[in-house]
């Protein structure tokens, strides 16, 4: 049962410019607390202490990619069931089919409108909460 509201977002993204734009939009328009990680390693290290309500996860990252990161996050108790949204430029049909097979809430395609991002996430969160209830 998920009753809590969306407050804390873990953003895993290796591109510093996309980090800036995304975290600025989430912070300024959504009022969320955003923790930015530039790699899978950083995300795995900070997941337990940050305790995110939602994870925004890039797919193409040096080292461990987003798909393996998701599997590793599921091994950590703090993020074992945390909803994950892929935020990715890899949206070929075969890629999307793969994301859908994984335990992800949704896929947001890059490029996106940062001003619309909060609304999109808000809608996805509401749907997630309804389904979990």
């Amino acid at each position, binding site marked *: 049962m998920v009753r809590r509201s969306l407050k804390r977002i873990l953003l895993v993204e290796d*591109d510093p410019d996309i980090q800036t734009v*995304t975290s600025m939009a989430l912070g300024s328009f959504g009022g969320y607390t955003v923790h930015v990680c530039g790699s899978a390693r950083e995300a795995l290290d900070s997941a337990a202490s940050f305790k995110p309500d939602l994870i925004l996860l890039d797919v193409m990252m040096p080292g461990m990619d987003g798909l393996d990161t998701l599997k590793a996050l599921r091994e950590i108790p703090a993020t074992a069931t945390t909803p994950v949204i892929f935020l990715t430029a*890899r949206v*070929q*049909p*075969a890629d999307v089919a793969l994301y859908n097979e994984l335990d992800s809430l949704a896929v947001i395609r890059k*490029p996106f409108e940062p*001003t619309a991002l909060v609304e999109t996430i808000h809608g996805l969160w509401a749907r997630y909460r309804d389904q979990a209830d």
Partner: protein
Amino acid sequence: MKADLVELTEQYSTALREYCRGGGEAALLRAYQLGRRAVTGGAGVLEMAGLHQEALVAALLEMLALDESARIAKRASEFFAECLAPFELTRRGFEEAHAAMCDLNEGLERRLSAVLQDFESAQDELLEQKRMEKLKNDFISVISHEVRTPLTSIHGALNLLKSGLGGELNVQGVRLLDAAYRNSQRLVRLVNDLLDLQRIESGTMTFNLRPVDLRSLLEQSIEAGQPHAGQLETQLVLQRAPAGVRVRVDSDRMMQVMTNLLSNAAKFSPRGETVVVEAVRLDSRVRVQVTDSGPGVPAEFRARIFQKFAQAAPSSDRGGSGLGLSITKAIVEHMSGHVGFESEPGRTTFYFDLPEWRPRAAARQKAAGDTWSADH
């Protein structure tokens, strides 16, 4: 009979006579060997029997010197030769059949070789097609990632600046930002259109077909397209749409189709003019049409207007990818529809027809009256 064979048979005949006269193993062996060579060289059974007959008769005549015995011996050998005739005929039949089989085999070999050659060239062609397909997919993959990533930052930053996050800009700053934002939007559309095209061509675009109310869908599309039309100083108006008409479509894809048609119409419409949207019933189908009062589609462009990367004037600054109409056509056709246009200077109408969706119950009622089914 060939000269060699004639000579061989003569030698054989002589050897036989010698054996009949004198006997002995050496003479028999010599006759046997000559006989084998004659048969191998082509002498038939009857010819060989003739030789045997002559040798036997000659030997008997020499040995017995009695006419009566010789006559009997001659008849016996004739009878013997006659007995062999069917075997000879069978052998010749076999030879003819063998020759015919050889001809047939050669023909089959030729045909098989031609088929194999065709197969190999078809295989080469298929491999080439696959190679080209892979190249295309690799290219789109590169576009997809390598262009999307920087575009996310550029478009995102411009979007945030336009939202006022960076503070107020002066008039020139606003104009520059608008130009940058507009063009980044154009790039975003291009990469998205490329992806849609790939999905359509590979058959991986998904369609969630459901009956939807056409009028409200058109109203939504006009509401969504109004801001863009406003930027171009045109207005979108839904002039008429029958109430209660439903079509079985994917709503998102329908919105995409309408966005393409409305955006095109607004783009080509003179400033201050109105783009008119109408929906009309045509028997079992419904036609949605979007009319603008722009300059019209140039005659030389009409035949390829729905093709990929088709633009009337590539250098124009109207800002399309040249993919919108081909995507529109593919989507509409996937929903059992048809697209078309009519154009003259000052009035261009793009339209698409879709089957009108009616519930099964209504269709059954109607089917009671005639055999026509409304449930498509």
